[in-house]
C-alpha cells in the first residue's frame, strides 16, 4: 500500500501498525515523538493496535527547544 510519511510517498505492507512504522522509519526517541495520523493525534498507548491503510498520511512531530540561551 502507498502511504505518506512526513510528506513523502512510501510503499509499506498492508496492515502495518503505527508502532511498526515508527521502528521501520527509525524514529529517534519515539517515546517523545507525537504521531499525527490524517486528522488526529495517535495516543502513545494506541500505536501498537492502530493499523495503517492505503492513502494514510503520517507525520512525526519532534520536540524542539532552543531560542533564548
Amino acid at each position, binding site marked *: 500500500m502507498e502511504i505518506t510519511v512526513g510528506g513523502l510517498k512510501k510503499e509499506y505492507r498492508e496492515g502495518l501498525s503505527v508502532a511498526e512504522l515508527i521502528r521501520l522509519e527509525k524514529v529517534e526517541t519515539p*517515546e517523545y515523538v507525537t504521531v499525527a495520523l490524517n486528522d488526529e493525534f495517535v495516543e502513545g498507548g494506541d500505536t501498537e493496535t492502530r493499523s495503517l491503510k492505503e492513502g494514510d498520511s503520517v*507525520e512525526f*512531530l519532534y520536540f524542539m527547544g532552543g*531560542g533564548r540561551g
Partner: protein
Amino acid sequence: MAEAPVTFSPAELERYSRNIILREIGAKGQKRLKAGKVLIVGAGGLGSPAALYLAAAGVGVLGIADGDSVDLSNLQRQVIHATSGVGTPKALSAREAIRALNPEVEVRAFEGRLAASNILEALEGYDFVLDGTDNFAAKFLINDACVIASKPFSHAGIIRWQGQLMTYVPGRGPCYRCVFRQPPPPEAVPTCREAGVIGALAGVIGCLQALEAVKYLTGAGELLTGSLLTYDALKSDFRKVRLPRRPSCPACGEERTILAPEDYGIPACGIAPPGA
C-alpha cells in the same frame, strides 16, 4: 482589537512608508501596529531578530522579558546584543538596541524570570505573545498561561539546523500542549548547548515569528494556526504540517484540567531557570 486614535508624524509616515504601501497593511494596518502591544519572552536567538523587526515595523509597545545577562557565547546568534553589552541584563541590552533603532517604540523591559506566580500578570495588556524561550518548562508555562488568559502566541523551537513554529489563537486550532502533551524528561532530548545551533537559523525562525505577530495585529494573510511550519536549513526545506486539535488536551480541551499555570524544572535547550 481596540482601535485607538492613532496618528502619525511626517517622519513616521516616511519611516513606515514601505509598510503602508502594502495593500494588506496600508494606513489602517500601520495604525494597528502602532496600537499593538507584543510581549517577547526571551531576548535570545529567536527574540533578538523578532524584537528588532517588530520595533522597525512600528509596533507601539514591545515587552521584553528575560532574566539572563548577555554572555559572549550568545553573540553568535543573539543579534540584538553587542559585544559591549556582555554582562548586562538582556532585557536592558535589548531595550537600548530598540531605542537606537526606533525611538517611537515604547519598550517595557522585564528583568525577572516568568514563573507560574507572575506570568498571568505579565501577560496583561498585551495583544500577542512571542515565545523565544530556550526550555520546555518555559514553553509549557507560556502555553498554559496564554490558553488560560486567552492570549494568542507564537511558539517556536530551534536546534542544530532545524526549526519549527506554530501560532495559537484562542478558539482557532490546537495549542502547544495539544501537540506535545507534557515536557520531556531532562535527558530525553538534546539541548542547544550540547547539540549546537546555527545563528542564521534563529534569525529565520525568529523573523517568521515576527511575521506572525505582524499578521495577527494587522489582519493580513493567514496565520500558522492549525499548522506547524518546519524548516530544515541543510536541505533548504520548508514544510507546513497540518495539526489537528486534541479533544482531550489538558490545557484547551473540553475537560481541561490545567486551570492555573504550573512550574516545571526541566531544561531543554540551554540552562534551567533557577528556582524553576
